[in-house]
């Protein structure tokens, strides 16, 4: 009962986790690159803000659906390949795949469909909700991995770290936006934080993706050495 042997995260192979990590990283990278490409053009005035909005919205919607479906499938595959607490963790993680799908239409859903009051920071609110939608399952996932008894120690420490990474990348930008638009508009210190947070926000998917890849790596190494122990 209390005695439980430590096992690799997945069997037979870590392919689903590697794929999930890779997909997340690639999605994050693409979003960051395309986003900065568009925003760069818009800030130089090469395209109008209107065109920027239209393109970003189109890209968000398309990439979001593809990524969402892909993530969902891979999460499920991971869950199937794992067992016990790890399986539960990845099953919960699957909820996070809703986030990319919703990010493009969070505002419409929240304010037109659900009829929430918009106050005067609608998009900040919507951003917070989608972020929560991604971050909450991911945090639970990593907490479960970090506290799972039958999981290789390296994976658990990495998961612990990942909790903070997810929380930081998710909430720092929101914190800065709230600060900048509601609490301390005009503060130069907050201005510099915008600079930082606009970089941090790009890491939102990349870092957890890399975490998954690393986890797969550690676990795979453990699996190779594990049976010996």
């Amino acid at each position: 009962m209390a005695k439980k042997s430590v096992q690799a995260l997945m069997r037979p192979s870590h392919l689903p986790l590697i794929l999930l990590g890779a997909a997340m990283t690639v999605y994050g990278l693409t979003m960051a690159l395309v986003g900065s490409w568009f925003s760069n053009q818009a800030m130089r005035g090469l395209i109008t803000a209107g065109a920027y909005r239209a393109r970003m919205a189109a890209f968000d919607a398309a990439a979001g659906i593809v990524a969402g479906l892909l993530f969902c499938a891979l999460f499920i595959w991971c869950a199937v390949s794992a067992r016990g607490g790890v399986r539960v963790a990845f099953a919960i993680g699957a909820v996070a795949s809703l986030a990319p799908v919703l990010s493009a239409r969070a505002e419409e859903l929240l304010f037109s469909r659900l009829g929430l009051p918009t106050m005067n920071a609608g998009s900040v609110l919507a951003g917070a909700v989608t972020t929560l939608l991604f971050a909450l399952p991911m945090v639970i996932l990593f907490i479960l991995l970090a506290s799972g008894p039958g999981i290789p120690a390296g994976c658990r420490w990495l998961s612990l770290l990942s909790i903070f990474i997810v929380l930081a990348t998710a909430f720092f930008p929101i914190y800065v936006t709230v600060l900048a638009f509601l609490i301390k508009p005009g503060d130069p210190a907050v201005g510099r934080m915008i600079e930082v947070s606009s970089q941090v926000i790009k890491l939102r998917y990349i870092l957890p993706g890399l975490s998954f890849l690393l986890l797969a790596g550690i676990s795979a190494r453990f699996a190779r050495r594990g049976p010996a122990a």
Partner: protein
Amino acid sequence: MNPRIYKLPFFENLLNLTVLALLAALCLFPILHILALSFSSAAAAASGRVAVWPVEFTLQSYQFVLDNPAFGKSFIISLLRVLVGTPVNMILTILVAYPLSRPRDKFRARDFFAWFFIITVLFSGGLIPWYMVIRQTGLIDKFWALILPGAVPVFNVILLANSFRTIPKELEEAAAMDGAGHWTVLFKVLLPLSLPVLATVTLFVAVAHWNSWFDGLILMNSPDKYPLQSYLQTVVVNPDPRMLTERDLDLLKIISNRTTRAAQIFIAMIPILMVYPFLQRYFTSGIKLGSVKG
């Protein structure tokens, strides 16, 4: 009490009651509207979604108003104005109404003084001379500028004088027999018999003081001496759209905020709403006595 000899048939009675209830609702509507606005969110108010029930309930407007020291200051000045101005007005009203209510043979100059006061209602020299006189008498920027220039409310004098005349002569004559002078007649006989009309006039005077805004705006030399309605006027005015520049943005934003406006208007109504029901029962007899000569 009421000459209610017949009863309406059921259906007509129902119709009667319905129409009256509707009328009452019509009169209550504006107050409820203001109240609902003041408890609604700014966005809901700005998009016109508020009727008589708060939308997106919030106390923000009240917090904003109560956090604003200018509002509180003005409120106190207005209270003070009512507390000082009403007695001053009432004393002068009574003192003028009594001589004017004497029959012509008892007070030969009565008609002269009557017209003396009535003329002031009809003719005025305009703003500038009025302002100059007040300045010459040293009242500019003084609290008393809100009290003294309008200290004799002529319409109320007429109301009270008429009411004095409805009091049976016999009572006065009896008192006079006992050696009572004018002062005794006024204070021992007339005033105790005129309570309803006094209550009515008091309310008129108090409300007039509470509601007046123009004199405060013109006669005070700084906004921290404005009475409440003058202050409100500066908050609820609409800016001339042709004169707007980017420097007026902060003003524009505050002005377009209907909820805080509503909250201030509502708070400004509270004293009246509180006093009114207590004095209301005197109205019927009070107004009648003042307006009809027996």
